[in-house]
């Protein structure tokens, strides 16, 4: 017998080890669930880590109130089916004040409805560790992110002051009020994620698959008309095009790509021929150079 694991099984084993380590070392961990494909993989890994028991911590979705309707629907059905302890948190005040990308711009919207909502959610439940589905291959500033990423009392990340991380020994010590963000799928690439979804038959939001959808072209991005909140002069220009999404977020801030890929195999095939990295379809990245790093310092993932 050859005692060797494939790349995917090795990554899986590593992630399970990380997830268990957090459950063992922290009093009150939470798994941040974004409904996206990476989150879906992360949740499956958590289920595997504690089988035949249940996942011993809650999932939390930070709802910006501008997610695609299909995402919310998928979230609610899947959570019910799986019996998850799912917390949905949103910024009530921001919601009451009608904060949104069309009226306030992407920067204000992201700050109020995502970053602030996340921090408030973490504070409300006093979570001392939060799992995120970020991967190091997504963006340059993430290449240096730790798996256990230390955050101070204000959830700030200091790139100059990160704890050394060696072997598979993770330093989980925090003072009261401080916390750790944990990225169990740090070492996975986009292809690994798709491969795993295929191998494990993990359900994903249908928006990842190509379909005729009403989209408007805005500064080179294809924005889907998901509800009536899109300004009428904008939605008036909508055309049906066969598109899909490589990442999912707030619908006005997430560009679609034209595609015919209706299965995972076709998505992977497309990914390897149309070589555009996935974060370019997220509008928020265009703000300024190093903008992801900026957001991370402020507490966003």
């Amino acid at each position, binding site marked *: 017998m050859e005692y060797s694991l494939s790349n995917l099984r090795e990554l899986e084993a590593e992630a399970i080890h990380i997830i268990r380590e957090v459950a063992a070392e922290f009093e009150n961990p939470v798994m941040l669930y974004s409904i996206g494909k990476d989150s879906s993989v992360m949740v499956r890994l958590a289920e595997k880590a504690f089988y035949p028991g249940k996942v011993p911590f809650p999932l939390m979705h930070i709802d910006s109130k501008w997610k695609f309707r299909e995402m919310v629907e998928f979230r609610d059905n899947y959570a019910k089916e799986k019996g998850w302890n799912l917390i949905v948190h949103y910024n009530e005040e921001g919601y009451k004040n009608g904060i949104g990308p069309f009226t306030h711009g992407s920067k204000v919207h992201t700050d109020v409805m995502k970053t602030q909502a996340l921090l408030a959610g973490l504070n409300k439940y006093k979570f001392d560790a939060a799992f995120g589905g970020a991967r190091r291959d997504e963006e340059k500033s993430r290449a*240096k992110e730790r798996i256990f990423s230390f955050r101070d009392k204000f959830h700030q990340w200091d790139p100059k002051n990160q704890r050394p991380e060696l072997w598979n020994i993770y330093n989980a010590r925090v003072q009261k009020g401080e916390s750790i963000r944990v990225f169990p799928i740090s070492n996975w690439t986009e292809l690994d994620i798709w491969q795993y979804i295929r191998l494990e038959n993990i359900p994903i939001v249908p928006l990842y698959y190509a379909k005729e959808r009403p989209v408007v072209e805005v500064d080179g991005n294809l924005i889907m008309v998901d509800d009536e909140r899109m300004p009428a002069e904008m939605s008036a220009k909508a055309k049906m095009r066969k598109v899909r999404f490589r990442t999912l977020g707030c619908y006005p801030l997430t560009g679609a790509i034209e595609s015919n890929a209706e299965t995972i195999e076709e998505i992977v*095939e497309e990914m390897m021929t149309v070589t555009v990295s996935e974060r370019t379809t997220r509008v928020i990245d265009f703000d300024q150079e190093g903008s992801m790093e900026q957001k991370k310092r402020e507490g966003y993932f």
Partner: protein
Amino acid sequence: MTTQNLDIKAFLDQDQKKDLLRLLTCGSVDDGKSTLIGRLMFDSKMIYEDQLSALERDSKRIGHAGDEIDYALLLDGLKAEREQGITIDVAYRYFSTAKRKFIIADTPGHEQYTRNMVTGASTANLAIVLIDARYGVITQTKRHTFIVSLLGIKHVVVAINKMDLMDFSQEVYEKIKADYESFVAQLDIPDVTFIPMSALKGDNVVEKSERMPWYKGTSVLDFLENIRIVSDRNFTDMRYPVQFVLRPDIDFRGFSAAVASGIISKGDEILVLPSYKKSVVKSIVTYDKELDQAFPPQSVTVTLADEIDISRGDMLVHPDNLPRVERHFEAMLVWMDEKPMNLSTQFYIKHTSNTTKARIDLVKYKTDVNSLEKMPVEFMQLNEIGRVVITTSKPLFFDPYKKNRQTGSFILIDPITHNTSAVGMIIDKLDSKNLASRITDVDKEKIAAGQSLIQTEDYQNKYNQKGETIWITGLHGSGKNELAFSLEKKLFDNGAVVVLIDGSSVRSGLSRELDFTPADRDENQRRVAHICKILNDQGIIAIASFISRNDSLRNQLAEIIGPNRFHLFYMDATLDYCKNNKPELYDLIEQGKTQYLPGIDLEYEVPQNAKLVFKPEENSQNIEKVLDYLAANKVFPHH
């Protein structure tokens, strides 16, 4: 890569079977390290087009490579680093070929970033050491190779770069190869491969170069794709460090862990550390299916045939193959913290899934990372590498790092800042007879501090005595205690203020967690010396009666108390006298039921500088001798 003629399903089926190689690149930007990584990634078609176009824009503004594409910009993530033009952390890069997936730990090469390189090396199976063909084997090459060997990386590719600038000369290559080989012989790296190349021009990076026909080996990528690394794992010594106890309902009780080494099979008899209880593996559970066997690095859950109490930090092993179970060991330590080592800190030590407290007893030496010279130091600072002695409060279950990377590694966490202060690789347990004393120079400094508002003279006048210590050394059963007790009574009767400290009273309370190993014996006496010091500071005479087996220890006790206040008396009894006088312990040791008794299996050094020497038979005269001595030295009476 074109997939037009490829059945995508077949491609995916094959692709998901490929394995993973983690590698470290050692060198600096000047050696062309970033260029090499960029080219490996670029030429294996994994650099996406949009990243490339962003790169062209960045290169023009802040690039260091003129008009050519600066591959380094692809890699340096953080803004501050990009502006300085150096990578100052560990960045992880990913690329795949048809045969393998690769994770590159990319770390800076300068000496002040040793800790970053150590970090990158900790998870790597292979290291690429870059050498600039123009300069050959330089200090940096040696430093990098030393770190690679320290962290136990078994495979090294020496990439001799910039061959284009040396006319692709075989002579240059052979010279560098010979130099490196003679240097690396003193280190422990089993597999070294030399590849001449030019990262900038692409020679021997992905494709074999035609410009070096004399080179018969493979290209870098070809080598990385084909090297066998599975056998590097330890499949011999089964170590299963319990990470999480899974108890979803009353019927199921599982112990989850990542297998650290060896193979655990259903039906195996196992032994649990530290309880030494035995049981049998009933099942190996995973979400997908039950397994017959699990091996590293699988994460599984094991159930046992018997109900035994097992918690996180315990370890399952095979009864015929135990790790070391020890509280004292030697390790190579790398200091990672801006805050220098302080020998009096009680660190948290995290080792596998086990966390306890630890103290650094002693730094034996530090290794100069450039010359590999060993130098005596008292403590370590950022980026320094040294050999230390560590004592933990609970035993650790470990193997030497050379045999087992998983159970031989640990981190030290600062108890206040919670920073990872140091990381270590265990050399082995320490032969207890050679344990270092725990009385350190730091203690001496502490002693110098702290002062009372009452003057020494005030005490001396009030009590008519000098607060000093009478320390009686001698073998077990030599009659030290008899002398000590009679002396206390006599001094008390004569009006002195005196306190007697003997082994049994200290052992029953203050030092009750200590055992009788040499290190713990020394620790016990260190504590007693501190009590004597406190008593003496307040004008009180202390009488201490302890074996105190050698001059090195006794001198350190004198340092704590103050050499001028320390009066060493020696009870000179023959071993026969001692055995007759107090036979119990001597009998036990002869029967092999105990160990570490000075004079028997630990050396007892006759003191060279005792102020008085007694024979036990002469107890009444001995008291007179002491009283005369104290009077002559104005200890008591003082006036």
